[in-house]
C-alpha cells in the first residue's frame, strides 16, 4: 500500500493551497466486520470536508473489551500497536464515541505506569476525534449535502455523550439534511443496555434496558433510528427486530454521507 | 456518667489512627496538624456562596419569603412587634386550630401582650398535648427560606418538633443572605467553636415521600410552619414591647 505523503499540521504557514489534513481512519472492529458502509460513509464525509483519508491496514481494536474486563495486560497488548500506527497522522478519527473515548480518555490510564509511552499516548489522545464532532468542531462543517425524506430519532451513545461531549454536533448536521426532521426520544441520554460484554454477561438486565429503549424509540414515531456507535445500534436494531419492528436503523454517518441508498439498514431486509 | 475509656479500648483508637496515617503514607504515631489544618479550623474559609443570597437587604427579605413559601411554609409580614399576638390569633382562627398556645420561655415571646387576645398561653417545653407553639428565631436565611433555631433554656427544642403548628417569630434585621453569615453571627454571639446543644435549620414543615413518593406534610414534626416576619427597622429595643 502506498499512502499519501504526510502533511504538516500547521497549514497557516504554508504559502500554497492549504494542505489537506491527513486523517487516519480508525475503522473500529464492529464497523470492519459488521458494517463497512459506515466506514465508507466516514471516508466520504472526511474527504468532502477536505481531508486526505488513510486507513492503516494493520489496525484491529482499541483494546476496550479487555480494559473493561480488568485484563490490563491484554488491553495493552492490543492497544499498543495503534499508537505507532497513527503516529504520523494529523488526526485520528473513529466513527464511534466509545473507541475514540478509549483512545482519548483511557489510553493515558492504561499506560500510566509506562513512562516511555507517556508522550506518544498523550499525542494520540490530543489528535483523536469521534467522527461527527471532528467534522463540526475541527473541520468547521456547517452542513452536509444529503437528503432523507422522513423523520429520525437519535440515541446519544453514552461514551460519546459523557466522555467526549458529543450531543449537539450530530443534530446540527442532521438539521442540514434536506427533508429530514428530528423526533427526539423522551430519554435520549439513557443507556441502551449494550455495555460491551455486559449485554452477554447480564442478558436479562440488558434486555430490560434495551426494551425500555425500544419502547421509547417506537413511541417517538420516527421513521428511522440513528446513533453514532455500532455496539448500541446492533443492540437496539436486534431488539427492534425481535419485537417484530421493521424500523430502519442506521449509523448517523450513513445519513450524513447520503449513503442510505447504498445498503439496507442494520438488520434490515432489502427494500422491494 | 459513663467512663468512655471503659467502653472503647484505646487500642482501637490508636489502631484506627495508625492505619489512617500509615495508609496516607505517614508515620503511624501522633503528629502535629499541618498549618493548613490549623488555619482552616481557626479561620474557616467561606468557600462558594451562591449569588442568589448576596443582594440588598430589602430584596433578601422578599427572597426569604418566596423561598419559605415555596417549601410550604406560610409567611406573614407585620409592621411591628405589637402586631405579633394579633397575627398568631388570626392564623390559628383561620386554620381552625385550638386557641391554646405553648410559648418559648423567652422574653421576646412571653413579654408580648398576649392578654390582648383570647388565646390561652403557657410557656415551657412541649408535651404530647401541645398543638401550637410560638418560638423566636436566631436568624433566617434568604437563600433557601430557612429558619435558624438554637436550643437554650429559653428555647426548648421540643417546641420546634412536637406541636402540629409551629409559629416562628423572626425579625427583618435577623434575615441574612447565606448560611455563612449565620455562622459568623453564631461565633459573635457565643464565641468561636461554641454551639448550643442543638442548632436547627428549618426549611418548611415536616414532610415525607416515603409512601409511593407522594409528598405529605406533617410526618413526625409540625404539619404547619407559619413565619411571622416582623419589620423591626424602626424598633430600638427588640423584645421590649411598650
Amino acid at each position, binding site marked *: 500500500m502506498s499512502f499519501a505523503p504526510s502533511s504538516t499540521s500547521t497549514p497557516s504557514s504554508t504559502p500554497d493551497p492549504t494542505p489537506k489534513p491527513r486523517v487516519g481512519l480508525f475503522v473500529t472492529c464492529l464497523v*470492519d466486520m459488521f458494517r463497512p458502509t459506515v466506514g465508507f460513509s466516514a471516508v466520504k464525509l472526511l474527504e468532502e470536508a477536505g481531508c486526505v483519508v488513510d486507513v492503516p491496514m494493520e489496525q*484491529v481494536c482499541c483494546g476496550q473489551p479487555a480494559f473493561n*474486563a480488568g485484563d490490563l495486560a*491484554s488491553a495493552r497488548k*492490543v492497544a499498543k500497536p495503534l499508537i505507532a500506527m497513527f503516529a504520523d497522522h494529523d488526526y485520528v478519527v473513529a466513527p464511534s464515541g466509545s473507541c475514540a473515548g478509549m483512545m482519548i480518555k483511557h489510553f493515558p*490510564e492504561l499506560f500510566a505506569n509506562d513512562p516511555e509511552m507517556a508522550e506518544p499516548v498523550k499525542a494520540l489522545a490530543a489528535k483523536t476525534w469521534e467522527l461527527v464532532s471532528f467534522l463540526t468542531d475541527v473541520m468547521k462543517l456547517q452542513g452536509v449535502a444529503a437528503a432523507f425524506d422522513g423523520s429520525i430519532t437519535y440515541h446519544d451513545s*453514552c461514551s460519546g455523550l459523557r466522555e467526549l461531549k458529543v450531543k449537539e454536533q450530530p443534530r446540527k448536521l442532521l438539521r442540514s439534511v434536506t427533508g429530514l426532521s428530528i423526533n427526539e426520544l423522551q430519554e435520549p441520554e*439513557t*443507556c441502551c443496555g449494550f*455495555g460491551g*460484554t455486559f449485554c*452477554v*454477561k447480564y442478558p436479562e*438486565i*440488558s434486555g430490560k434496558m434495551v426494551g425500555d429503549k425500544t419502547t421509547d424509540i417506537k413511541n417517538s414515531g420516527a421513521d428511522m433510528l440513528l446513533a453514532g456507535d455500532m455496539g448500541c445500534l446492533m*443492540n437496539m*436494531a436486534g431488539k427492534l427486530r425481535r419485537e417484530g419492528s421493521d424500523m430502519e436503523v442506521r449509523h448517523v454517518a450513513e445519513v450524513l454521507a447520503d449513503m442510505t441508498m447504498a445498503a*439496507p439498514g442494520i438488520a434490515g431486509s432489502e427494500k422491494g | *456518667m*459513663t467512663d*468512655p475509656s471503659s*467502653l472503647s479500648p484505646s487500642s*482501637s483508637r490508636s489502631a*484506627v*489512627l495508625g*492505619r*489512617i*496515617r500509615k495508609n*496516607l503514607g505517614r508515620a503511624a504515631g501522633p503528629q502535629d496538624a*499541618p498549618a493548613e*489544618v490549623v488555619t482552616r*479550623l481557626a479561620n*474557616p474559609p467561606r468557600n*462558594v*456562596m*451562591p449569588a442568589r443570597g448576596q443582594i440588598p437587604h430589602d430584596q433578601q427579605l422578599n427572597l426569604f419569603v418566596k423561598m419559605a413559601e415555596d417549601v410550604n411554609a406560610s409567611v406573614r409580614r407585620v409592621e411591628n412587634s405589637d402586631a405579633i399576638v394579633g397575627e398568631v390569633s388570626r392564623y390559628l382562627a383561620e386554620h381552625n386550630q385550638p386557641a391554646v398556645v405553648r410559648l418559648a420561655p423567652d422574653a421576646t415571646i412571653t413579654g408580648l401582650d398576649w392578654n390582648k387576645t383570647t388565646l390561652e398561653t403557657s410557656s415551657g417545653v412541649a408535651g404530647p398535648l401541645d398543638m401550637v407553639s410560638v418560638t423566636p428565631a436566631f436568624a433566617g436565611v434568604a437563600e*433557601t427560606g*430557612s429558619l435558624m433555631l438554637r*436550643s437554650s*433554656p429559653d428555647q*426548648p*427544642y421540643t417546641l*420546634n418538633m412536637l406541636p402540629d403548628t409551629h409559629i416562628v417569630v423572626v425579625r427583618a434585621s435577623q434575615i441574612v443572605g447565606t448560611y455563612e453569615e449565620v*455562622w459568623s453571627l453564631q461565633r459573635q454571639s457565643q464565641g468561636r*467553636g461554641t454551639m448550643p*446543644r*442543638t*442548632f*436547627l*435549620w428549618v*426549611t418548611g414543615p*415536616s414532610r*415525607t415521600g*416515603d*409512601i*409511593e*413518593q407522594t409528598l405529605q406534610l*406533617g*410526618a*413526625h414534626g409540625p404539619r404547619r410552619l407559619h413565619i411571622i416576619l416582623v419589620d423591626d427597622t424602626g424598633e430600638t429595643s427588640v423584645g421590649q414591647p411598650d
Partner: protein
Amino acid sequence: MENSTSPKFKQNAHDALNDASLQRALGRLKTGFKDKRTAAIAQLPEFEQLRDAARDIKNHTLANLDHYLTAFEANVIANGGHVHWCADAEEARQTVLKICQDKDAKSVLKGKSMISEEIGLNAFLEKQDLKVVETDLGEYIIQLRNEPPSHIIAPAIHVHKEQVADSFRATHKGRDINRPLDEPRELLDEAREVMREHFFAADVGITGANFLIAETGTSVIVTNEGNGDLTQTLSKVHIAIASLEKVVPTLEDASTILRVLARSATGQEMSSYTTFSTGPRRTEDLDGPEEYHVILLDNGRSNMLGTEFQDMLRCIRCAACMNHCPVYGAVGGHAYGWVYPGPMGSVLTPSLIGVEEAGHLPNASTFCGKCEEVCPMRIPLPKMMRHWREREFEKHLGPQSMRFGIQAWAWMASQPKLYQFATGIAARALKLIGGSKRAIRKLPLASGWTDIRDLPAPQGKTFKQLWAEQQAAKKA
C-alpha cells in the same frame, strides 16, 4: 445485615425483573427524584462550582483525616460528650449495647442510619431483649415487613401503599379493623400517632450522621420528617453512629456540601430539618438528652485510604447515582444483596465485605457514566468499578470462560493478518446465516445475545477487504 446475597446477584436480578409490583414501584424513580433534581439544579447557577468545592473539601479532609478526627474528638469531649472509636462492626455493636445496659435501657428508638444497617444493629439489639423501633416512616415500614432497605434515602421505595396498609393492620392492634387506610395521608397519620407513643417511651435514641464537624464537635443529621430530631431529643441518651469519613473541618465546609446534598438527593433546595447537635443538653436546658455519644466506625474504611478506592470516601450518601442508574432502575436495591445498592454500592460493598463476595456488583454496569455525571462529589464511579474488575482478574475470580475468551481474543487481535482472515470468514458465514432477513435469531455460543435480541448480520465482506479492493482498483 452482614450476611449478603451479593453472590446471587444474577438470580436476585432475575427475580426482581419478574416482580411486577417492584417494577411498578421502580417506574416512580423518574418523577420522584430525577426530574426534581434537574429542576433544582437549574435554579442554582453555582452548582458546578459547589461540586468542585465539595470535592476539594473532602479531599483535603481525607488527606488530613487523623487530624480532623482527633480535633472532632477533642471538641465532643469538651462539650461533655463521648467518642467511641470502633475498628469493626462487632466493636460498634458491643459499644452501643454497653451504653444501653449502663442506662438500664429497655427501648431504643432509631433515626435512619445506613451505618446501623451496615453493622446489623437492630437484629443484634433485639437478641439482647431490647425493643428497637425505627422512626423514619420508610424504615418503619420495612422494619414491619422484616426487610432490608432497598434504597439509601428512600428505604421503602419498593413498597406500595396497599402493602403498607397490610403491615399496619397486622401490627397496630386495637384499632377499628375497617378503618380506611387507602391513601398515603391516612397511612401517615396512623404512623404519626403510633410513633408518638414510642417517642415518649424511649430510653436511648440512635441516629446516624451526615456530617461530623471537627471545629465544634458537632454531628449533623439531615431529615425531612422530624423523626430524627424527636429520637435524639426525647431520649435520655443520644448515640450518633458514623463512619470515619463523615468528618468535615468546619461549619462552612458542611454548609457547602449541604448545598449539593438535598438537591442531588430529592431535588429539594434544602431538606426540612438540618440538625447540628453538640454535646448533651446544657445544665439549664429544659429538654434534650442527658448523654451524647458518638460511635466512630472504621470497618474497613481506613484501608481504602491510599488506594484507588480512596475517592469513594467522599460519598455523602445522596443516592443520586442509584436514582439515575439504569441497572438500579431495572432491578431495584435488594438485588445487590447487601446494604448499599446502585453504583456507590458496587464500589463500596467490595471494599467492606470483600470482592470475593461482591464480585458481581462492579461487573453489573454498562459504564454508561450517568452516575459519575450526577455525583455531587465527582466520584469517578465507573473507573473504580473497573479497578474492582482488575482486582478480580488478578485474583482469577471471574468466570473462567470469560477470562479465557478475553485472552484468546487479545491474542487474535494482536495478529492483524490472522485476525483479518478470521473476521473475513466470520462475516461471510454470519451473513449467510442471517439470510434475507439480515438478522440471526439464534446462534450457538452467543445465546447471551440472541436470548434477548436478534444479531444483526454482517454485510458480507469486511471494511478492510473492501478498502483494499478499492485501493487496488484505483491503482489499476
